[in-house]
Every structure is written in C-alpha cells, then in structure tokens.
C-alpha cells in the first residue's frame, strides 16, 4: 500500500515538483552564466589589472568568499532594499548566487592564468602577437583546459546553493518539496526524491564537463 500511495502523491504533486526543478535549473543557469562572465572579469583584473584595481577586486573576492551564501542571499533581498535598490526575491536570489559564483570563478581564472609559464607570453610576443592576440590564441585556450574541472565543481555548488533561496520564498525544488511534505506528511521519501533530483542535475553537469574535458584534451 505504502509505495503505491507515495507514487500517487508524486503524481498529484508532479506540477509543483516539476516547476521546482525548472526554477532550480533556471536560477542555477542564470547564476552560473552571470557569475562566470563576471568571474572572468574578476580573474583578469586580478591577473592583469593595475594595482588599485587589483586591490579593489581582491577585496571584493575575499569579502564574498568569506561570507556565507545564506548571508549574501538575505542581504541581497533585505539590505539592498534599504539603500533604495528593492529587488524581487527572484532577482535578489540570482544576484546573490551570481556574486558568490563570480568570486569563486574569479579565483579559478586567476589561478589558471598565473599557472601558465611566462615563456608562453614571451613566445607569443616574440612572433608579434599583441596582448589581445596573445590572450585569445595562446593563454585562454590553455587556461580553459585548466579551469574546466574546477568550474564544473563550482557549477554544481551553485545548484546546491540555490536551495538557500527557499528562505526568501523562491519556489525552487527544495521549497516545493517542503510544500508537498507539508500536505502529505511524507518527509523521508520526498526529501529522498529531492536529493535524487539534485543528484541527477549535478550528475548531468559533471558528465557534460567530463565530455568537454575529453574533447579538449591535448595529446601527449
């Protein structure tokens, strides 16, 4: 009797759960994309920026990385409003995650760029490439290979961190699961289901990452 009724409950709750999954995917996607774009800027500023810019960006990353994501989420929703920047819960949530993501991606990008031997830049300059050409054709392709595994990790972290948006009332997967549980009192199976769904999402991201990594691998 029990399993049938659990499956029945899933069936009844299929739309709220699906919309929870959908929202989790959308939030994670937006946060990862925005955070990555911002993070590349952060990483390049840390590597090539003039000293004042570097200090400023260093302060930003250290501050963000030292702050719990939950605090960022709450601050972005409640505190920004007090300085006249009232965001809706969705925007505030995505902003907080994107900022968090950017500080991590920034460090990954900086690390990867700095790990490339200086001789690479010198050889590129020696054949007459400008800084832009050196970056595009020589440094970036090497950095990307270095960045990819850590970046996939960060992306998976973002999916997990998106659960924190439930606290400001975003109906992502965790909150919609909790709402179903409140109705059915079946906490264990539904939390298990939510866990399995998160696992599937991250498994998908990691498989994709491994595939790209394999495709880009340089023979040696």
């Amino acid at each position, binding site marked *: 009797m029990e399993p049938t009724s659990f499956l029945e409950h899933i069936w009844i709750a299929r739309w709220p759960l699906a919309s929870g999954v959908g929202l989790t995917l959308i939030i994670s996607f937006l946060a990862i994309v925005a955070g990555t774009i911002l993070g590349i800027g952060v990483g390049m500023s840390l590597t090539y920026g003039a000293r004042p810019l570097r200090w400023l960006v260093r302060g930003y990353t250290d501050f963000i990385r030292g702050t719990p994501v939950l605090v960022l989420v709450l601050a972005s929703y409640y505190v920004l409003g007090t300085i006249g920047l009232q965001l809706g819960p969705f925007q505030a949530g995505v902003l907080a995650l994107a900022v968090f993501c950017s500080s991590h991606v920034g460090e990954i990008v900086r690390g990867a760029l700095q790990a490339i031997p200086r001789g690479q830049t010198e050889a590129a300059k*020696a054949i007459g490439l400008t800084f832009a*050409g050196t970056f595009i054709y020589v440094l970036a392709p090497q950095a990307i290979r270095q960045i990819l595994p850590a970046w996939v990790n960060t992306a998976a972290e973002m999916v997990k961190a998106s659960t924190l948006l439930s606290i400001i009332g975003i109906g992502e997967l965790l909150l919609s699961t909790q709402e179903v549980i409140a109705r059915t009192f079946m906490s264990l199976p539904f939390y298990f289901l939510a866990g399995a769904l998160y696992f599937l999402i991250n498994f998908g991201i990691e498989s994709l990452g491994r595939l790209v990594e394999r495709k880009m691998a340089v023979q040696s």
Partner: protein
Amino acid sequence: MSTNLVEIRNLHKSFGKVEVLKGVNCDLAQSDVVCVIGSSGSGKTTMLRCINMLEDFDAGTITIDGEAIGYDVRDGKRRRKPEKEIARQRALTGMAFQQFNLFPHLTAMENVTLGLIKVKKLGRDEATAIGERWLERVGLSSRRDNYPGQLSGGQQQRVAIARAIAMNPKLMLFDEVTSALDPELVNEVLMVIRDLARDGMTMLIVTHEMRFAHDVASRVIFMNEGRIGEEGNPREMFLQPKTQRLAAFLKSSSFN
C-alpha cells in the same frame, strides 16, 4: 645611411638597483653570425631580450634596418612606443628560447602557422605551405600533426626555430637554445642553426657551446659585467684572448 642591419648604441638596463647592461655597443651587418659568450649574469640574455623588447631598456638606442626599436625620442623626451607598434617591431626579429616555449595546445604545424595567420594575416593555405617548407627544413615534416608533448626536446626546439623563422624575420635571436637539452640532442639543433647560417640569415646567438661558436660565428662577443669585454673573429678570440677575463672564462668553460 649605414650598412649595418642592427645597431646597438650605449644600451643600459637595470633590474631594480642592479645594473645589468652598462652601455653596450654592437653592430651586425647583413648575414653576420654573431655568437655572444660570457659567464652567467654578464648580460648576454638581457641584451638579446632588449632587442625585441621583451625587456624595456633604460637608455641607449637599438636600430634594426634603420628603424628605432621600442622608443621614440621627441623634444628630447624618450617615450615608449605604443604596444601595437612594439608588437609589429617584434616581428622584425625571430627568437628561439632556452625552454622552447612551444604552445602546448597546438600541433607543430599550428605552432608554426599561428603567427603567419594571426600576425601576417596570410591565408591558411599559404601559411600551411610556408609551415611545411620550414618543418621540412628542420627535418620534422612527419611530425607536423604532433603536439609538443609528443616531441623530444630537440624536436621541440627545432619546431620553435621553424616557428620563429617562418615569420621571415630580418634577424634571428637564439637564447641558449641548447642549454635545456640532453647532450645527445644538442647536435640536431646546432645543425639547424648552421644550416641557417649558410643561408645568410643574420643571427645573434647566445651560447655556451664554445666549439659551435668557434665553428659557426663570423664574430664572437665576450660579455663581461654588463659590457662587451672583447670581440673579434672566433679563431683569434679563442686561441689568443687579449683580456685576462676572456682567458679565464675560456679556461673555465669546456673549450680547450
């Protein structure tokens, strides 16, 4: 109008408080093969790196084919040229490095053609044809699709030389190109350089291979404490050094 391809006048360079070049003067005529010897820290490599502006220099001038490298002097003020202009001037010279510095994510052919396509703006076919010619010249046609990680040190250095020379530079700079190689791989690289010398390529070669310098150089420069200590034709210099410094250096190096 002078007949020299390269003219270095009163070149000065410091790293912080350490003055590495203390006024170097040096000329290269077309097809000169000049080997630069001297103990480490004497400024050989720094001089080479100033010529293609991998290092900024503090005073003096470098002229290649009548063109002032790196700096403009206007109203008595010395200004670094714009980055784009410096990039263009760097392509006047080709450089081979001690550590090869091949691009690890590109094949041998792609390493050679990158500059041709992105700097010289040649079409892919034309660039590949030039790449094939030079890879054949250094004996590596069969390795064109291999990545640097699949090549031996000597092979990598030969690809690196092909990459530099494919750009058709007016002057080739070699910075201790055999120092990082296993002894049995040194010769294949030196052969390539000898071959280029026979072709009339103008070259400035920093080397520790005294025998090679003796055989291939039209002139040898002995750098000592940031200045040119002695220069002349290799036979005279190696057999009858005029300064005690050079005599001591030759004694301590493997040449005898």
